[in-house]
């Protein structure tokens, strides 16, 4: 977690003073801040780690019985698993897998402490007993689905090379279980991911796509791709990404919802890793498919595709233009009018990063007839959507041309902007004040009165005046500045800071002296140059 950010670096405040600020600085990543207070909503819908609940484990026993039974028997299970007799060993491993497959609080730590892991790893190498390999891999999968230490314990037992070996197994069940276990290890974080990549995990995983495997297996494989792409700290290397991208592109031809969702999220994660990664994805040619997914029927898929495309337009002007050229904006009218708030919000966020671009890009948003919808959300949307809509408008005013700004003014953007000035959220206030201030600055003299009147008419002036008593200094200052500049009759003459202090003040005298040496007569003949007078301006 990067917490050493100097104060306000990422705050929007500074930008309003620097009107020429480039779009790269205006564009906002989805997760601009690293600290989160909110509950983790799992809105990504894809789990980091999954355990496999066996549905045969308790089928012949009642719950109470089985738990008691298992607790008592952990020692015995481990003992059996060590037995050199393959049949007994199998029974032991199978029992271990069963207790690990109960839904609540499987005894992971207990079994780790009983030193089960080396035994399980050992079993992975018994190619002559695929069923044993399968049970051991399953047990490992479930141990690795626990917390980070538990996952780490699996790695420490050196399971990964053995699991990788199993990817070549001729037994499809063993392969699939190994894929799953590996997915859990990679899902833990960047470190284990990179370790797995170092051990060569990518090529065998990619190869599965060329084999005839059942769709459920294919889903598991796709999920491993998600885990490979997920972690940002640090992100996946460009080389590894280059290896994966063709696979993702291939997977996008499927119509299976789960595969499409996962695959799109994998891309969305990759696209959140900086402009070089974005470029790599752009060049892989996968994005035209993703743009088309914006019109899919399944909300989960639209959500993922929106996030992916949204991440692209946090990139450079060229990358943003690429998305525009793919015709993405044509889908947005529908997205902005979608009944799901969340899609409205994401769509507005995405557009805000396009209006942060150059005037041509602003014009593309205007030409796609999207501004009326954005303004509608600014007025009536749910608060998070209102915020994104406000960013969208504010960014537009920052970079838009005089005509473009006039366009949104004519669409009555001012009343909803002013309406938001009664909110408490500082960032939102800042964004709305920026927008109003920019509109005022960019309005030609002859139309200014019309704009100031609009602000006053809808009660905006009162609200800006109220903000002058707001506790946040930046808000106070900007509202003060707006009032001073646009709503005060006489705007010249301010006494403070008016002296050119380094010039000598004329001492109080009864008459005004004139000339260089304070005589009342003309200056004696010119010897200024000898006086070292030199003018440079």
């Amino acid at each position, binding site marked *: 977690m990067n917490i050493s950010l100097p104060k306000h670096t990422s*705050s929007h405040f500074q930008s309003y003073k620097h009107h020429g600020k480039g779009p790269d600085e205006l564009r906002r990543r989805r997760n601009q801040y690293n600290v989160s*207070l909110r509950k*983790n909503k799992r809105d990504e819908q894809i789990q980091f780690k999954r355990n496999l609940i066996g549905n045969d484990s308790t089928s012949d026993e009642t719950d109470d019985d089985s738990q008691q039974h298992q607790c008592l028997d952990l020692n015995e299970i481990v003992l059996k698993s060590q037995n050199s007799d393959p049949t007994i060993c199998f029974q032991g491993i199978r029992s271990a897998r069963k207790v690990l497959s109960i839904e609540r609080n499987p005894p992971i730590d207990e079994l780790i402490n009983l030193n089960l892991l080396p035994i399980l790893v050992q079993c992975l190498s018994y190619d002559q007993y695929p069923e044993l390999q399968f049970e051991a891999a399953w047990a490992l999968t479930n141990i690795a689905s626990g917390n980070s230490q538990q996952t780490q314990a699996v790695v420490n037992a050196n399971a990964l090379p053995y699991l990788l070996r199993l990817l070549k197994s001729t037994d499809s069940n063993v392969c699939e279980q190994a894929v799953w276990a590996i997915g859990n290890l990679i899902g833990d974080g960047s470190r284990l991911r990179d370790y797995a990549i170092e051990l060569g995990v990518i090529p065998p995983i990619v190869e599965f796509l060329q084999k005839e495997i059942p769709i459920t297996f294919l889903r598991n494989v796709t999920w491993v791709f998600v885990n490979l792409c997920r972690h940002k700290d640090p992100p996946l290397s460009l080389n590894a990404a280059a290896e994966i991208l063709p696979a993702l592109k291939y997977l996008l031809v499927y119509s299976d919802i789960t595969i499409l969702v996962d695959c799109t999220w994998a891309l969305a994660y990759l696209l959140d890793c900086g402009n070089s990664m974005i470029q790599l994805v752009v060049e892989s040619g996968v994005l035209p498919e993703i743009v088309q997914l914006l019109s899919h029927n399944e909300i989960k898929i639209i959500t993922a595709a929106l996030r992916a495309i949204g991440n692209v337009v946090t990139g450079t002007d060229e990358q943003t233009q690429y998305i525009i050229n793919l015709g993405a904006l044509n889908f947005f009218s529908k997205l902005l009018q979608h009944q799901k708030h969340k899609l409205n919000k994401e769509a507005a966020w995405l557009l805000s990063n396009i209006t942060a671009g150059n005037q041509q890009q602003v014009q593309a948003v205007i030409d796609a007839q999207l501004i009326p919808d954005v303004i509608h959300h600014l007025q009536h949307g749910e608060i998070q959507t209102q915020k994104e809509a406000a960013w969208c408008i504010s960014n537009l005013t920052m970079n838009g041309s005089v005509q473009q700004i006039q366009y949104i003014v004519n669409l009555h953007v001012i009343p909803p902007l002013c309406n938001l000035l009664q909110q408490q959220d500082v960032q939102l206030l800042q964004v709305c004040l920026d927008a109003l201030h920019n509109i005022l600055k960019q309005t030609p003299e002859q139309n200014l009165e019309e704009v100031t009147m609009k602000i*006053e008419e809808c009660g905006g002036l009162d609200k800006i005046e109220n903000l002058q008593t707001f506790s946040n200094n930046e808000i106070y200052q900007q509202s003060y500045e707006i009032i001073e500049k646009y709503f005060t*009759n006489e705007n*010249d003459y301010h006494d403070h800071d008016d002296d050119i202090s380094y010039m000598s003040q004329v001492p109080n005298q009864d008459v*005004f002296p*004139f000339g260089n040496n304070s005589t009342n*007569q003309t200056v004696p003949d010119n010897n*200024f140059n000898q006086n070292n007078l030199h003018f440079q301006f």
Partner: protein
Amino acid sequence: MEITDQNLEALSTYLRKTLSANTNERLEAEKTLKQIERNENYTSLLLTLCERSTTPDELRRASVITFKNFIKRNWPSLDESNSISIRDRNHIKEHIIDLMTRSPEYIQEQLSDAITVIGRSDFPNRWGTLLDTMIKQFQQQSSNSFQSINGVLKTAHSLFERYRYEQKSDELWLEIKLVLEKFAPAFTELFKSLMAYFPQKESDPIEMKNIFNSLCVIIKIFYDLNAQELPEHFEDNIDIYMTHFLTLLSYDYPKLHSNNNDPGILDQVKTEICRAAALYADNYSDEFKPYTQQFALVIWSLLTRLDLSSSYDELIGTAMKFLSTLAARSHHCSMFAGGDTLKIVCEQVILPNLFLRTSDVEEFEDNPEEYIRKDIEKSDSATRRRAACDFLQALCIFFESQVVSICSQHIDSMQKEYLQNPKQNWLKKDTCIFLVLALASKGETQKFGITKTSSFINIQAFYSSSILPELQNKDIDSLPLIKADCLKFLIDVRNQIGRDALLISIPECVRFLSSNNMVLQTYAAHAIERLLLVRSSADQKFTSITKDDLIPYAQAMYDNFFRILTSDKSYENEYVMRAVMRVSSSLSDRVLLYLNQLMEKLVMILRRSCKNPNKPNFNHYLFETITVLIRTSLSKNVGVLDQFEQILFPVFTQIFTDDIAEFVPYVLQIIGFLLESHSSGSTSIPIAYQALFQSILTPSFWDRSGNIPALSRLLEAYIEKAGETIVLEKLTTVLGIFQRLVSQSKIHDHEGFAILNSLIIHLPLGCLNNYLKDIFIVIFTRLTKAKTQKLIRCIIVFFSYFTIKNGAQELIIQVDSIQANMFQMVVERLIIPELSKVDDNGKKICAVAVTHLLCDPEQMTKGIYLNNLWLALLQALLRLFESSNILQTMSTADRKKQAEAEAEEELLVGLDDTPDYTPVFSRLAFAKKPRADLLGSSIPDARCHLAKCLQTLTSSHPNQFLNIMAHGLSREDLLEIQKYCALANVTLT
């Protein structure tokens, strides 16, 4: 300093002396304390003193206050060598919380302030134990009194409050995260235990008060911690909080009510809950959704139970704000849609709070100025009425037609009740009028009143049926508040009711001027003034009410105005003074009928105000009125100038002599205006002006920034009218003023240049020759030291005047004689980048001057300046032409049209809303200076002038300049030049 009894004794002695009645002793002791405060242990000694219960109360108080002030001054200082030692700092942080909780309330408050200061600078990184110490206090609740918990809570709130308004940042959120992890669980436990505890204590009012004091702060902290984002902890516990909040909202305990006008603690708790609920409803609507309906029901039933006591005002305001939040949101508003909800809300929640209260009525009678301020100047943001009105308007967002129809029934029935028994039911009429305005207004500005109206309300009809009859009531003194409401209604809807309605209203307003009620007088005057500004719907250039409409009432108006302005009560009523100004302006030349009586009274009032000039707006309009009269008179007959001078100069002299700083800038403007109106002929200016001239050159006069704009204008008038006589005698002084303004002020430098330009234009050629070098040095020195865009534009304009007067060649010689080749710098760094940005007034003169710079001087037409500058300067000139419509439209017909437009504009001066007084310098709108075009007749079109000059140039240098242009200029630029040539009817050869 060790902590010994001896040292403590000594410190007590000093502290006691700081309370002494003897000033010297007190100052001495304060000084001594300051001297010893740098010693180690100083703070420990203070805290020890205030901790000891044996210390007398006043000394405990003195020591803790001294401690707090010391902390405030020294703790935030980063330079640790120079302030509190690390050891002392750590010692304080270790003990202060504990000490605070053990102290009596008066010490607790001071310590809490000190903790806040320390926390602001040290928490969280350098005060890791703070939260733990606080939590410990919560957990020891049983052994602690509420007072100590309260102290901790208040301190926590003062530390956390900034989360409400600080900009999101990782640093801030990390701090909040820490607080949430450490503090929030214990905090929630504390809240739960208090909620379980208070029902057991209902028999103990004192304990109940303590508990509710704590609850109140707890809810404030709840808000602090939830303001930035909905934290996981509170989402997990949302049900606990919301359920308890609902319980508290419905809870009643009579002994916790207020017995005066301030809110009681239970109501404060409810107020804070409404605030927090609004935060949730607005920002975390998904999570809040399950509770929305319950909150809405509980809150509106609460609203129906509260009476008119002002101790409930804040609660009612906040509660209605919560409901407004729901009403304005599309995903919440549906709860108002079903059944009779809207009707119940309008009738039981909104309407009762729209009624005026006894206190308002008393204010109308006893403190009319305050009433006016709240009512007409809209300083009513904190009132119940405003809150109810905001709620009503929020409901109208989604339910306008229903709300209007519900309210209309009430408006009708209240009107009827009023008509049946006006004396008894007049408050209902007041509510009706307010309600109609609240429903009808969809947009409002100061300048125009209501600008947009609801399509569901017919304002015009309501005006004629319900307002006008009141205004026409014969008895002007009955029910004055209702009359005032009606006048206010008229003022608000003035742009909505049409000319005929306005005309009928005018005489009624005049009648109310004669009321003895100050609010009525004021509103009547204000109404007249505002009505006169309404523009004609047929032609926006003219006002709806003409001077002929006004004449029948003019005498009566003036009589009433001046009766008020000479009464005892409201003789400095700014609304009335502004009405005098407006009527005088609107009457145009017809005002001359009243000139003598007006001037007599105005001068009398001016003399009176001189004694006590404390109403800036009133004074401002007084001077504006005088200016209107001068302006109108002079437009008819310049001969009356000396009459004004005779009447005004004695008062003006008095103002100068007594040095009434507020009035001097006005007087200077008026004198300037008068002097400008004298003919420029050979006759010398009147002696009075000559006498004044000497004194306006006094430096002390120019020291006041507020005088400078008026002084420089007046000085320019002197230069124009008496340049060759008295000004020439004092030329060095005038130049000294120029020098001071230009070298010492970024704000007034342009006024220095205006004086200089005036000298160049009006003094005979050659008068300035001896001073030119110095003038240029002053300018270039300032430019070198403090360059601004405004300065550059001033310089360009000055150089242009200079060029036109003395020739282009002379300018180059002067500049280059100060420093070799400086002219190149002038062109490259001043003229080229800024030429097209000079003010419209200066554009033409600059265009002509630059034309001459290009075509006349030898220095430009050969050698390095030709190579380096010529083409770029020509391009800059073309940009200048492009930048200005004025320069583009100068055909003879156009000019004639423009002259007509200007003359018309002249007539309309002051037709727009006249600016109020402003603290720094108030320009008199009616003393506006007309625009002058120095070259109006000699060079009608600067573009043709350029074409002609270029023709002369090219023909005397065959091929040379044509080549330069052909190779250097863009196609567009060449086409432009061809266009100019065509206009001028010349060809370049």
